[in-house]
């Protein structure tokens, strides 16, 4: 059931996004110009100069595509090692009031890889794993720098498209510093304070203990004076068909009735085992986590990082206290990526092109959002058969304050972009509702996309679309006056193929391995979806999850960490090669045969290219996961 007030929210979101796109784009033009002036120069210009001086960087000197890429790779490597070291040593470092232990090597590797690549896949639970220092330093540094890196790379590609006969694409260090100081930091300070006003925490206190109004009892393992678990020797039970007095199996409706019987060894003796003794424990207190959350959440959203402070991420009432904080968080995920399309139009002196790219993204966004919303509002027929009110939709894994619509909208946005924050548990979505975020990621997160990453990902599709259009009319394809040649198409295809090969390859490996199947929380087609989602999320640098998957095992941590690197850097290098090649080309004046890269024809062609590539790569796998599960859910099949 879709309510009119929800349509109003959707309209309001799209309208506000459209409104901020131009101002954001104009501001980006200033930030991404080494000599650009902004009204924040008063505060940040001295700091910017000081930073260059400490780094030993000459801001006037531009880099060619190879040096630009090399600087970016080196910076990512240093940051990754920095984070790995802190996580492995957090017990010995300050700001750890809960006394949390060092991370295991595989978890520290996975986390460092994931945060360096703007993925923010989390194999850990923040509240019980990360000290305040690890959260603030080891993780937040990447929330800023991986976002700035993405935007810098997009700017370099746009420069390659806009310039002609150029050897250089800008200076990576200048882009990195300027984006962080003039774009990310100022917005984050304001945004974080607004989030606090909604109820988000920001402090350095140890966890608060609250007295429960009504205590309750739980069963815990009994321990002796030395802290060792107390065990008791009991018989191992197995299931066997129940027999009647005559020794015949008892049947009901043609099926044997099963009963628990003691398991016997060869000698007919019962097999015994040690079981922990359970005792009742009264719980009278609630431990309330504290910490510097708002500062981290602001950049987590704005920089499309998505790594939650708490395990429940943006579903946690501290991390997303009100529908207003939810709305602003969704808007901030799209803000910079949307502005970058305007930046593209401005730099290439073809604003129609920028808006056409934006419009293509919006079409895909709305399609995904409507499908996900419809599926979740329609609910789960299995649960409705058990008596769940049909009008309420599928509320498993969702928060009351967000309801169906804001959960579906958030899920669509966070996977359109490479954010990966979640305000509801995608694992518990209906099959088609969960299909949307999964397919969004597999399309390459080019629907607005991660900051920077979305634009350069989409521009690869633009090059392909122009190439296909050129083939159809039998002319040398041109993009904004530049001839698209074999090298450019090869680089574009390479960056797309890396994604598909890595997602499907790793998923297939996990599906046929014991370590892969052991991590599953759900079986049947949904189990495949969990694995597929995990590798799609890491390759796509998204970070959201079908979170039932227990991925904190050496094999999963290692393969998912590698997937993060593959999805980020093996995609970026060919794209930078493309940027270098385009920048060096001459611009020929448009003729009657030039394919226009703005307007409805272009949008349709671009959408066709995106969907064709995505569908060809992933529909076979998706058919075995969410699509088959949809039909099984309709039939009431359970696993």
């Amino acid at each position, binding site marked *: 059931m879709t309510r009119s007030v929800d349509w109003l929210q959707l309209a309001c979101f799209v309208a506000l996004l459209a409104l901020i796109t131009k101002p954001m784009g104009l501001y980006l033009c200033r930030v991404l110009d080494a000599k650009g002036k902004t009204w924040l120069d008063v505060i940040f210009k001295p700091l910017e100069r000081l930073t260059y001086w400490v780094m030993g960087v000459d801001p006037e000197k531009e880099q060619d595509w190879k040096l630009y890429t090399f600087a970016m790779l080196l910076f990512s490597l240093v940051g990754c090692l920095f984070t790995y070291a802190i996580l492995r040593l957090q017990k010995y470092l300050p700001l750890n009031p809960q006394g949390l232990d060092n991370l295991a090597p595989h978890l520290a590797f996975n986390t460092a890889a994931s945060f360096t690549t703007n993925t923010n896949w989390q194999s850990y639970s923040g509240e019980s794993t990360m000290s305040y220092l690890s959260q603030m330093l080891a993780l937040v540094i990447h929330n800023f720098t991986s976002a700035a890196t993405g935007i810098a790379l997009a700017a370099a590609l746009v420069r390659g498209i806009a310039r002609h006969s150029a050897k250089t694409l800008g200076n990576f260090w200048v882009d990195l510093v300027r984006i962080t100081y003039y774009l990310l930091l100022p917005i984050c300070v304001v945004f974080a304070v607004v989030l606090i006003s909604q109820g988000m925490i920001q402090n350095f206190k140890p966890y608060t203990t609250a007295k429960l109004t009504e205590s309750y009892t739980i069963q815990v393992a009994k321990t002796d004076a030395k802290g060792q678990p107390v065990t008791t020797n009991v018989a191992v039970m197995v299931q066997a068909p129940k027999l009647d007095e005559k020794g015949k199996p008892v049947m009901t409706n043609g099926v044997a009735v099963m009963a628990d019987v003691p398991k016997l060894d060869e000698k007919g003796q019962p097999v015994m085992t040690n079981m922990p003794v359970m005792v009742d424990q009264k719980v009278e207190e609630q431990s309330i986590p504290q910490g510097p959350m708002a500062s981290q959440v602001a950049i987590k959203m704005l920089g499309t990082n998505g790594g939650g402070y708490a395990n429940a991420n943006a579903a946690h009432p501290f991390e997303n206290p009100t529908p207003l904080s939810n709305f602003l968080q969704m808007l901030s995920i799209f803000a910079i990526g949307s502005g970058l399309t305007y930046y593209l139009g401005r730099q290439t002196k073809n604003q129609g092109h920028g808006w056409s790219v934006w419009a293509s993204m919006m079409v895909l966004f709305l399609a995904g959002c409507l499908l996900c919303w419809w599926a979740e509002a329609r609910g789960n027929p299995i649960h409705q058969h058990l008596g769940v009110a049909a009008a309420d939709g599928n509320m498993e894994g969702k*928060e009351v304050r967000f309801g169906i619509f804001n959960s579906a909208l958030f899920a669509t946005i966070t996977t359109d972009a490479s954010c990966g924050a979640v305000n509801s548990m995608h694992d518990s979505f209906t099959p088609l509702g969960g299909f949307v975020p999964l397919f969004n990621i597999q399309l390459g997160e080019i629907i607005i996309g991660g900051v920077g990453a979305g634009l350069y990902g989409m521009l690869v599709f633009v090059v392909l679309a122009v190439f296909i259009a050129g083939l159809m009319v039998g002319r040398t394809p041109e993009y904004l006056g530049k001839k698209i040649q074999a090298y450019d198409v090869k680089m574009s295809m390479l960056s797309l193929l890396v994604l598909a090969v890595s997602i499907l390859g790793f998923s297939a490996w996990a599906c046929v391995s014991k370590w892969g199947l052991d991590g599953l929380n759900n079986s049947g087609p949904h189990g495949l979806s969990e694995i597929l989602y995990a590798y799609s999320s890491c390759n796509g640098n998204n970070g959201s999850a079908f979170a*039932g998957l227990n991925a904190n095992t050496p094999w999963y941590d290692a393969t998912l960490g590698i997937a993060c690197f593959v999805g980020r850097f093996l995609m970026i290098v060919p794209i930078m090669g493309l940027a270098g090649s385009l920048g060096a080309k001459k611009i020929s004046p448009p003729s009657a045969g030039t394919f226009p890269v703005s307007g409805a024809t272009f949008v349709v062609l671009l959408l066709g290219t995106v969907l064709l590539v995505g569908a060809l790569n992933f529909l076979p796998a998706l058919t075995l996961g969410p699509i088959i599960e949809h039909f099984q859910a309709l039939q009431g099949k359970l696993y």
Partner: protein
Amino acid sequence: MKELLVQLRGAVMSTLVLAVVCCGLYPLVVFGLGQALFAGKANGSLIVDSKGVVRGSRLLGQPFSSDKYFHPRPSAAGNGYDPTSSGGSNLGPTSKKLADSIAQNAADYRSQNGLDTNAPVPADAVTASGSGLDPHISVANAEVQAPRVAKARGLALEAVRALIAQHTDKPDLGFLGDSGVNVLVLNLDLDGVK
């Protein structure tokens, strides 16, 4: 080689400088502003009773099971409403475990609130939230529970319903999000804790 060292210095020094600015100065500035402007919220929206005892946070749910209190949603956070292990059940749409638990929750909910054995139940009453800490239940869910609470406390139904209305968080700006009844605040109010 010289170029490599130049770039390496850039990488190491930029990491250190940005760590100081983004991970040191920035959270401290936000901390200062937050504590100055919204101290109560920045410290967890804690509810403190007249004796100075912290009773919880108005943003985090707590478990309640006796008849005289409104019951929150089922929770998958630890043993239930454990804020140190927030999260959902993550059980999928065709999970038998999930279907079984919903059937059990629905049966319990019906018997507690005197509903017919096949009566539809509000979805939020039988499903776990995403965080396991959802402070809210739907208004429909609260309305179903109201007669039970009124009876257990010997209060007039109208008085309990008035309290529900009082502790219903309405959509922000009139249209964002869904209405929800804050269970902890409502229950504390029933107990006379302000």
